């Protein structure tokens, strides 16, 4: 626990070890037009910097823990699900030809083509589910936390 990055919240950021190679601090000293992150549009230049300690504080807050839980509870299982479904389709195509060529009453659109088109459908469906989840469960929490962080330095 010697790195300057590990100081306790509350200590002054000005005590940063100058020898630290992390250029993030060097970037902080650049002109406002070259703000380290965001500042991609002009409004950015007027935004006050957020103290590093504030991030640590927010990360331990129950609101943030909840936000992260909600995000991961959707994104991780869903990623696992669509990857399993995709590789199942790939493996069926190469190892289960008899299954994939069977006629399913759609003319020449056999089982393989139908499952392939279903891959398109599930991709669109998961996109829609993700949008709905983010808008409903993530955005309000994220907005509050952001306001707290950006407002705290005024």
């Amino acid at each position, binding site marked *: 626990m010697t790195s300057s990055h590990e100081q306790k919240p509350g200590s002054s950021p000005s005590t940063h070890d100058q020898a630290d190679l992390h*250029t993030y601090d060097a970037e902080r000293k650049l002109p406002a037009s070259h703000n380290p992150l965001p500042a991609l549009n002009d409004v950015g230049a007027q935004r006050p910097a957020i103290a590093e300690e504030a991030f640590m504080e927010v990360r331990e807050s129950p609101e943030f823990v909840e936000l992260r839980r909600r995000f991961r509870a959707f994104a991780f299982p869903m990623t696992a699900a669509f990857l399993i479904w995709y590789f199942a389709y790939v493996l069926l195509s190469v190892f289960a030809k008899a299954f994939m060529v069977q006629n399913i009453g759609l003319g*020449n659109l056999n089982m393989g083509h139908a499952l392939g088109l279903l891959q398109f459908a599930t*991709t669109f469906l998961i996109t829609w589910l993700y949008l709905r989840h983010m808008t409903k469960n993530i955005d309000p929490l994220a907005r509050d936390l952001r306001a707290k962080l950006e407002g705290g330095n005024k």
Partner: protein
Amino acid sequence: MNLLESMGVPVLNIGIFAAFVVITMFVIIRVTSGSNKKSASSFYTGGAQFSGTQNGFAIAGDYLSAASFLGIVGAIATAGYDGLLYSIGFLVAWLVALLLVAEPLRNTGKYTMADVLSFRMENRPVRLAAAISTLIISFFYLLAQMAGAGGLVSLLLGLDGELAQNIVIVIVGLLMIGYVLIGGMKGTTWVQMIKAVLLITGAGIMTVWVLAKFGFNLSSVMQQAMDANKAPKMIEPGIKYTDPIAFLSLSIALVLGTAGLPHVLMRFYTVPTAKEARKSVTWAIGLIGAFYLFTLVLGYGAAAIVTGGVTAIKKLPGGANASAPALAFNLPGGGTGGSIFLAVIAGVAFATILAVVAGLTITASASFSHDIYNSVLKGGKADPADEVRIARITVLVIGALAIFGGIFAKSMNIAFLVALAFAVAASANLPSILFSLYWRRFNTRGSIWSIYGGLISAIVLIVFSPAVSTPLGSAKPLASAMFPGASFAWFPYDNPAIVSVPVGFLLGILGTLSTGKKESEYPMKQAEMEVRSMTGAGAEGSIAH
């Protein structure tokens, strides 16, 4: 019968292509006239002022390369069902980008992928590694597009022969340099949007036209494709991919590569907020998905409608890649109508290549000047104006390299080069991106091992693959190899992903654990990155001012 001689009027093809260049140049000059071209933000990200919808079109324009349009239509025309598998991998891959990467990346980075990877690591070594992998991936992808440009020419402009192809590669290279230097990211984005609209509209019209000829019944199109080519097995798996493991390896590269492609990642920075990044990806998934559905119809349509069928297509210069243009000529029944429609589709194909090479060039130049010049060489203290100056010089260098590389690579297999770029992206970039966003303990050593390990294992396996030389112990030379006369391929699969992707992930884990630290390396930075990535704090247009 020589289909080429009866197909298309070169002057018309060249005219439509020239019109595209003139119109897009005009648009670029208009949209960039007011902006500050000296600012780094303006040059790299167009000032991050694009709307999610605009950016979604630009992503589609960036992603739907010549390999997608000509390559997939050709693959479906010649290999039927197996061609469809390609497009599914390319599309599903976007879910990885949407669910795990786009928004956190937008929230934690500024211009390049290395911004995110080095956020909470020792800056220089990680940034250098990320920049090297960005440059290598962009270069392979660029080579593929330039090679495609050369190959297309003989078909579309009627300019056969080595010299004519080289001249066209030089012209494409010069135009690309022009677009990027004059327009920066803003101009490039506009070119990509225009191209996406043209490409998707063009493919959409052809799709409706094909379906209309068969009473809007896809099954009838497929029936005709099978009958005309006496290929009843076309709708079954197994024509193109005979080795299951080889195909599994390709599938891994396709589905995991997209979210690690630097020029795709950079597109998340051209919008003002993470929410707009989300909207961009949603639009991109809709557009790209629709386009790949079109290619299914176009592929079977080409096999069904083109006079002489697949046999005639394969004899055209460019081989299977000529399926879509040949279909365009045959749809109106050939003749003048066919020539005009072919010219339009040819113009779209050229626009496609131009837009993609411009996007790749700007990504590579941003990575060199922002990551290597500014952060590694100048310790992050370079003047932004200098950084942009270096980026512009880099554009010239990359342009020159792409021209020479393209001339050298024009006989190489385009799909192989693109799949190579995807495999390297999935092995070298994706593990570090995911770990640094979602694994608190991930550290500098883990990043370095993962990036270089994924990069080196992918490239070494490719060098010793049957795509490069004839397999060891094989009795006769492998004609599809890059050097059929040589024999040093001990790796059995064309695509290395089945080995190199696990290597990238494993080395990331081993490197991290080998430091023995239970805590994250820089807890403050880690906390900042985690909070920023989830909330967008400090990364968006400020609220409540």
